[in-house]
């Protein structure tokens, strides 16, 4: 079992389960921001913010880049892509099976 990859997807699910963390991701999905900029519209204490950012970092969805004395927060798209890939893989799989089932049922009903 590819434990690391599974763990990453699970961590991403967990990270997205909190409304504040979703807001954070939404904000930094368009542009990199400082912690102060991200915190401004959110009604969170600094220690709560630290916790949320830590969870997003652990899930690999956020990275920090130093710019002078401030950290810029950057969204890392990979975990979200993993989730989308899981979904689209099975959607394709079952779509193709359904095509084959439909065709098969047509074939056997023509014979009878």
């Amino acid at each position, binding site marked *: *079992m*590819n434990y690391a990859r*599974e763990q990453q997807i699970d961590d991403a699910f967990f990270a*997205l*389960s909190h409304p504040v963390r979703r807001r954070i991701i939404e904000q930094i*999905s*368009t542009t990199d921001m400082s912690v102060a900029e991200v915190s401004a519209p959110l009604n969170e204490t600094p220690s709560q913010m630290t916790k949320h950012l830590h969870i997003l970092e652990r899930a690999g969805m956020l990275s920090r880049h130093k710019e002078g004395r401030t950290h810029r927060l950057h969204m890392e798209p990979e975990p979200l892509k993993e989730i989308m890939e899981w979904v689209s893989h099975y959607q394709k799989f079952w779509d193709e099976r359904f095509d084959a089932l439909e065709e*098969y*049922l047509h074939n056997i009903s023509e014979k009878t």
Partner: protein
Amino acid sequence: MIAELKKDGSIELQVKRTLAFPRELVFSAWLKAEHLMKWMGPTQDINLGLIEIDPQPKGKYRFGFDDKNCLDTRSFVHGEFLKITAPSQLVFTWIWEAPLPEAGVLTLVTVDFHEVEGGTEMVLTHQKFMDKESCERHNAGWTGTLDKLQALLAGQTS
């Protein structure tokens, strides 16, 4: 795309199809080996090379898929029937085997068969659970379509 992140942290996708055939026939196509051989297997790239199935509650199944482009590899999936309610619902687990990347990951498939005008509507729901540890530390929920995630990815400048 019909896919959702659920409150319990699981993720699920849904595929629907209306078939112009009686519900009993569509339902039985899922449980009889001679039917399954003809549709679960052959697509453009894949053949069903092995099939074992014990179609009763708590019965097990195992499929071996052969990749047509890579004939010496057979990918196995196995699972257990949790619910067989003819002709309206099937619930079974779906677990790939090593060395596939998804090996050992417990997923659940529910297929509902509805009688509709002109035939049978099949609604397949495939669900992936978080592992136990993640479930336990998971206290707040989110139900939302994955379109939101797609939008976030699309918004990426990189």
